[in-house]
């Protein structure tokens, strides 16, 4: 089942849902015909869309909003904070092409501070999907929660079979005593590759899918901090304010010391097609594994699929 299919099923059968977009229809092309007046395209007006969503939510609706992650998190920021965050209204933000998924668009479209920005708003919850199956497994829970929610959309396909989603829980993919990779979103697929390479090199490797970034699974972080010699926070996000910061805050809160390698971005990334971006910035599974190891291997990097945005 796809994002659009599940959204259609939920929204058609539940009058509370209003599907909104600031003229970004990539994920919801068939919704207008299915929902009629409960599909609202406000045009290229991210701020107005969020404000209007707050009004709809005041009247008992669950608005699900679609726009590019950068504009939803940054352009509409104060509207999210003031109109959805302060009154704690169930405004649901579906953020398209976050992180590296903006590939060749350039810095204007690079949402790599969105997790930092959105998690800084009281009441706003923050989630990221590792792949399409993970995404489809989490949206019903997120949309039925009473809080505003920011969701990093990722419709890429992996072979991994995810376990059921719970708000505030990380998904434990593997446990290991030498190194544990904590990641979310698009880089999950590269992390799986990195884990295989690290295991081939004889390491005991853990992997956590941190799909609920706020609330975050503090117990899972503390557990790996105590059982693994090295933690790696892998993210297509600035190190400032993202998972590296979340882990640092959690360790400090629980007075736990750990060796943590930040594996994120310190500046905007080079725009190009996604496979080239990952290789250029050092985020292929093989590059990740070799940076953790500190030496090169003979491992073969599987081909990375280009994004499928076409409907």
């Amino acid at each position, binding site marked *: 089942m796809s994002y659009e299919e599940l959204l259609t099923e939920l929204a058609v059968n539940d009058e509370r849902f209003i599907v909104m977009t600031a003229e970004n*229809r990539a994920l919801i092309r068939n919704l207008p015909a299915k929902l009629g007046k409960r599909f609202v395209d406000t*045009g*290229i007006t991210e701020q107005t869309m969020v404000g209007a969503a707050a009004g709809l939510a005041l009247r008992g609706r669950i608005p699900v909003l679609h726009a590019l992650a950068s504009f939803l998190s940054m352009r509409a920021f104060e509207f999210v904070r003031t109109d959805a965050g302060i009154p704690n209204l169930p405004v649901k933000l579906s953020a398209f092409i976050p992180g590296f998924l903006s590939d060749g668009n350039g810095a204007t479209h690079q949402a790599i501070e969105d997790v930092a920005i959105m998690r800084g708003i009281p009441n706003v919850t923050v989630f990221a999907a590792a792949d399409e199956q993970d995404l489809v497994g989490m949206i019903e829970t997120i949309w039925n929660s009473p809080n505003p929610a920011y969701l990093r959309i990722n419709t890429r396909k992996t072979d991994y079979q995810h376990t059921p989603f719970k708000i505030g829980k990380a998904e434990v993919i593997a446990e290991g005593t030498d190194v544990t990779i904590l990641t979310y979103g698009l880089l999950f697929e590269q992390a799986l590759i990195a884990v295989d390479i690290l295991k081939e090199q004889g390491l005991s490797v853990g992997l956590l899918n941190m799909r609920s970034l706020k609330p975050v699974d503090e117990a899972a972080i503390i557990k790996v901090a105590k059982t693994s010699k090295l933690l790696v926070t892998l993210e297509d996000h600035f190190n400032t304010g993202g998972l590296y910061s979340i882990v640092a805050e959690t360790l400090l809160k629980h007075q736990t010391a750990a060796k943590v390698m930040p594996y994120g971005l310190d500046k905007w990334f080079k725009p190009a*097609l996604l496979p080239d971006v990952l290789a250029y910035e050092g985020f292929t599974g093989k590059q990740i594994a070799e940076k953790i190891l500190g030496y090169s291997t003979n491992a073969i990097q599987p081909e990375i699929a280009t994004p499928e945005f076409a409907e």
Partner: protein
Amino acid sequence: MNNLPDIAFKVRQHIIRMSTDGGCFVGASLSAADLIVYLYTSFLNINKDNLDDPDRDYLFLSKGHDVPALYGTFAEIGLMDVERLKNHLSVDDNIYWHPNTKIPGIEFHSGSLGHLPSVALGVALDIKMRGGKNRVVCILGDGELNEGTCWEAALVANAHKLDNLIFVVDRNQFQANMATEDLIPLEPLHDKFTAFGAAVKRIDGHSFDALHEAFSAYPFETGKLNVVIADTVRGKGLPSIQARADRWFCNFTHEEVESLLKELAGDETTNLTSETLVVR
């Protein structure tokens, strides 16, 4: 003026050649091509030798995704090596889907809509404060006018009587997914800008004579923001994609590109099989 159609034809060829191996926003690039060619060749005092001159003119490309038209124009007027266009989307260069200042001649990065009317406003304000004569052009998309910041900039320009600022609206009648009038109607657009205090001209944005007549009248009225509403056609020059809502971002096959180049020359039409409604 006589060679402008030839330059615009070459720019359109460049745009079409960039619409493969990852693709580009070909429809908007083709609608804006004549505007951009006219402005750089016949109106603006901008060339490779005066980029550091504070008294030169400025052009801000606010809608951003029409940047292939700018790359192509830069190649034709000597601001960029034509060979560099082959690096489109290469990780080793900086020629991608939205403008960035690593390309000499590009004033400011864009892509997030409704930003550059404000940035251009600031530049125009400084020029006025310093008593300068340079002119500041900002090209906007019509869909971009959904963004409230475009109208805030018009309000502020009116407050400061910025008759050195020119908003050019590429009125190609489409935003990403559909006709503008089917989503957020803009008409009567002339009246809207007039009500915001601007002096407005509405012209055929593919007629170099009409462009010349309009820009020759600069400043349109003392103390007023200049607005040119240029009526254009999305995909202009390629009948097989012209004015089609589903041909916004195009990633054509190599065979389609060869056929489209012939279509541009009027020799054949193209049987397009590549994906439509690609969203970037």
